[in-house]
């Protein structure tokens, strides 16, 4: 038997369908074929974005009373409805809202909230209860259960977040496909990768290293070869986050078979002098997402895309003594898509009268309900298997 056939057969026998691309060419899908091929983009606003100054409860006296120095005044907002308005740095986001392409879900969180950045971030990534520690992410488990290739989930950022780590498969970190590819071109390592045979199939740690090596080579080649189909002419903000979203648009419009994209924008930890800091970041966010959506619309891919934006926690309602806010709890989550079933403000706005003992917002929607809805209604997979529990589905898609 030829080695190539052997590899193919043993891979099939093992249940995996991973065929390294240097053994068998893998192709992106042409635009007519890929139409309807749904994907999601997950964006984390890292550091804990202050939801109340992002989507502002403009008619609420408590808001203005507890934030005498940092509340957004009416003139610095863009109206959503009578009692709610966008921070006026979210112009592009506001126009998506007006087009019926955005859904705002208020008061999203989880029981016994943790106010540590990294712990709360882990909870959102792993979709665990706040007193449980799970070492895999919800998107990693999606990969495990439904995908054959690591490149079905790509993080366009440095490193790989917990969210994209599965038990069997990890997503691929590919901030720059050229760099990723170059990283695999050194003669010695390429020599190893090309000569890997059945060792990659073993379950032990050595097998795992070789398997990851092979997956890296195959994904790097796949992404490199297939992401050049589309060259964007859309202008993005000259910022790392803007570049990352541009890269994602390039991937989607080139017809990659990737289902999950992940990126993040950091710097939201506004303990001190919040207003200028947060406003600047929200502007970058809005302009970048606006550009991304425009780009996708040009190739008619926005209808196949869902953008989930979250942050690890909201911030304390009352401002602190340094014109900033401290770590809080529940927050809004936004969904942007060309195929929403329900756009607009999904549920009740934050109740500032009913705060917890720390003066933080109480959640009414478990964040895992949002995940379950996306998994089940959008990606059309079994959410209970991935989230290890049955969370109530919502109606936004």
């Amino acid at each position: 038997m030829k080695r190539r056939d052997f590899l193919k057969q043993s891979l099939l026998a093992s249940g995996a369908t991973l065929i390294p691309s240097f053994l068998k060419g893998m192709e992106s899908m042409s635009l007519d074929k890929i139409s309807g091929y749904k994907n999601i983009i997950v964006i984390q606003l890292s550091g804990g974005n202050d939801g109340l100054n992002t989507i502002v409860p403009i008619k609420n006296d408590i808001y203005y009373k507890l934030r005498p120095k940092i509340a957004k005044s009416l003139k610095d907002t863009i109206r959503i409805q009578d009692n709610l308005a966008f921070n006026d740095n979210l112009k592009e986001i506001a126009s998506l809202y007006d087009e019926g392409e955005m859904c705002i879900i208020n008061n999203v969180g989880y029981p016994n909230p943790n106010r540590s950045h990294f712990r709360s971030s882990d909870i959102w990534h792993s979709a665990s209860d706040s007193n449980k520690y799970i070492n895999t992410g919800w998107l990693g488990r999606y990969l495990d259960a439904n995908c054959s290739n690591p490149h079905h989930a790509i993080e366009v950022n440095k490193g790989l977040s917990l969210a994209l780590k599965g038990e069997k498969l990890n997503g691929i970190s590919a901030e720059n496909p050229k760099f990723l590819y170059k990283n695999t071109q050194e003669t010695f390592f390429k020599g190893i990768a090309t000569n890997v045979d059945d060792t990659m199939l073993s379950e032990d740690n050595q097998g795992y290293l070789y398997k990851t090596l092979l997956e890296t080579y195959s994904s790097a080649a796949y992404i490199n070869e297939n992401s050049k189909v589309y060259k964007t002419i859309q202008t993005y903000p000259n910022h790392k986050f803007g570049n990352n979203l541009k890269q994602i648009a390039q991937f989607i419009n080139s017809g990659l078979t990737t289902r999950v994209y992940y990126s993040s924008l950091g710097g939201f930890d506004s303990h001190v002098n919040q207003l200028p800091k947060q406003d600047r970041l929200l502007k970058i966010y809005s302009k970048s997402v606006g550009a991304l959506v425009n780009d996708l619309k040009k190739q008619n891919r926005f209808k196949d895309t869902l953008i989930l934006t979250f942050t690890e926690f909201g911030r304390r309602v009352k401002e602190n003594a340094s014109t900033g806010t401290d770590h809080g709890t529940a927050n809004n989550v936004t969904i942007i898509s060309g195929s929403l079933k329900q756009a607009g403000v999904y549920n009740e706005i934050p109740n500032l009268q009913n705060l917890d003992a720390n003066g933080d917002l109480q959640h009414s929607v478990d964040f895992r309900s949002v995940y379950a809805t996306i998994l089940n209604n959008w990606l059309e997979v079994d959410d209970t298997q991935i989230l290890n529990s049955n969370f109530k589905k919502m109606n936004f898609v």
Partner: protein
Amino acid sequence: MAHFFSEKELQHLYWRAGFGLSADELKKNKKYKKEKVIDRLFRNSEKENLLKTEISQIEVENKSLNAKQRNELQLKQVAKLEEITLEWMQQMQTSEEVLRERMILFFTNHFSAQVIKAKMTLDLHHRIRKNALGNFGEMLLEVSKSPSIITFLNNKQNKKKSPNENFAREVMELFTLGRDSGYSEKDIKEAARAFTGWSTDQKENFKFKPFLHDEGQKTVLGQTGNFKGQDIIRILLQQKQTATYLSEKMYKYFVNPIVNKDHVSIMATAFYNSRYDIKTVLKTMFLSNWFYEEKNIGVKIKSPIDLIVGLGRQFKVAYENPKSIIFLQKKLNQRLFYPPNVAGWPGDKHWIDNSTLMLRLKFPAATINKGIIDVEDNAIIMDSMSTTSNTTEGSVKPKLQNGSNFLTKKIKATANWDLFLISVKGKSKKDLIDFLLQPKLSAVAKKILEASKEENTKHFTIQLVSLPEYQLC
């Protein structure tokens, strides 16, 4: 049990109990009987070697600081933590007390905390350092009373009138019994009451605050009394489950990520019967036959620290800018004093993803040979260049890609090759493979090494440490 260890067994022992052996140390140990080798391992680790990084100039945070001063202080704290990290890394790379350093690394992950305060961090580190080869019960009490753990697990917010269960929960779930192992939510609530009042003063020292303490009666794990924090620690140590949980964790760390329940039970009994003497449980492992079974050798994925320190010791690596070590720790996801959460680094396969694996593979050559891996004498490697090059662009002759890469530019380091080459003089290729690589070779590695016509020991060594096999120990 035979009288002497084989070279492989010695290297195995030292990779697990330390950070690997140099050829000279290996030679020396080969002369000793097994018991003597183990005995030396322990005796060489008697010194505590407290870190010397000076932290007195860092003022303690207080309420009178304004926002700008607070920010400045925070930056100083981060810089100080780097200093502490680099001193500890240096100590791991050069110290004779390898077993102690190894145990500190183990317990630092067992008692995971992240406070980004130099004084508290160093204090916790020293509490662990002093007890790393002593009594686990004493270490548990010392660590539980450390301002770092008290702050990190919110026990300052644990007050009679408003109990905070975090500390009590983690003491049971992570430090002693293990998750869902013989305690109930009620036990946590009651234990939390006993820990009320364990706090810190304004200078970040431990302080018991009687006015916050709940004097009432508590019932924890079936025992009732007007317990204080130390009583809960005592009760937890009375549970054999604590010895079992710790033994299982040690087994996974020192022996094999796949647990053998019988061996864990032998360890747990020895640990419990010795009243938690850490040396006893370690000796139970290191003196057993099963520790050296082939299925336990070369099956552990080195942590980033293992990888950096192990290479550093073997090749006497000197970093032009020691901050490269911080860079590596960040890139490889093990920045000391910044664990991912209170449960610590999960380790094993979790170290590996596509971005860390490529960096890990390139790290040895980048550090000891400017990224250059000589392959021209290897037919298999050279062949693969033509078969894998992109043929769509015609028959361009494939170019050898070697040397300078992103990592090489970031890490500027040198190795002491003279010393290494003298120490391995006379070793055959097979000897070198056995010496540097712990696992059984994969088919690929075997094929590549068999094809190597490389007669230059240095070049061959660099090939060896660049193989995926070097990532295991």
